[in-house]
């Protein structure tokens, strides 16, 4: 039960971090100069929040591999792909074609098999 709770934290924090990064980076536009971009990271609140979420995800993953099998923890964390694709479609208005939805269904089915 604790494994699934930690997995939920890993997936939830990863999804939040990736969505915040994607939203902020799309709002900023294409990076032209790496130096300028790195210097501006600390002025972007959403990027700082995304780094904070990444840290939560990492520490939760550390705890997860302590109590669960590696062969469960690594593949199961791919559940974030399912949520990210759905949220990218709804919030970021990204077009998701049939092949990607099929991929999402495969990942969801795979995570379900890991749960058995």
């Amino acid at each position, binding site marked *: 039960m604790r494994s699934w709770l930690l997995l939920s934290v890993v997936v939830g924090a990863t999804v939040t971090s990736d969505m915040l990064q994607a939203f902020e980076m799309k709002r900023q536009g294409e990076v032209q100069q790496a130096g300028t971009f790195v210097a501006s990271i600390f002025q972007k609140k959403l990027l700082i929040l995304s780094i904070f979420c990444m840290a939560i995800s990492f*520490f939760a*993953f*550390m*705890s997860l*591999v*302590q109590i669960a*099998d*590696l*062969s*469960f*923890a*690594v*593949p199961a964390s*791919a559940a974030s*792909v399912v949520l990210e*694709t759905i949220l990218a*479609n709804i919030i970021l*208005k*990204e*077009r*998701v*074609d049939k*092949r*990607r939805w*099929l*991929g*999402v*269904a*495969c*990942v*969801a*089915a*795979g*995570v*379900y*098999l*890991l749960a*058995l």
Partner: protein
Amino acid sequence: MTSSHLRWKTRAFAAYVILSNSFGNLFLAMGMHQSQEVNSVLSALAAIFNPVVALGIVLLISWLLTRMAMLSWADLTYVLPVTALGYVVSAVLGLLFLHEVITPVRWAGTVLIMLGTILVGIGDPHAEKSK
């Protein structure tokens, strides 16, 4: 840079990305099994100083940086499917080094997740916005 050189460079980076991620996770798991149970931020920070955990973290940082560098010349649609192999490699490492019992159902789930990630990864990375 010649196309042959670029091809070999891409393959070498792809191999490093898969192995550094899989071994990084393996060392993290091995080190965490040696550490005290993580139940607070302080205990999590203390676990970082375990040498095996630290080795795992160094490998995962090198994985992140190598993957970012690779994305500067290789398509995301190439990088994502290739790195999805890491799910299977991690399971194999768990079986070999941590003596985990992996049931046929778990293997099936892992392979499905890898195939799903490949399907999500391939295609146009600059798809149009939906209406």
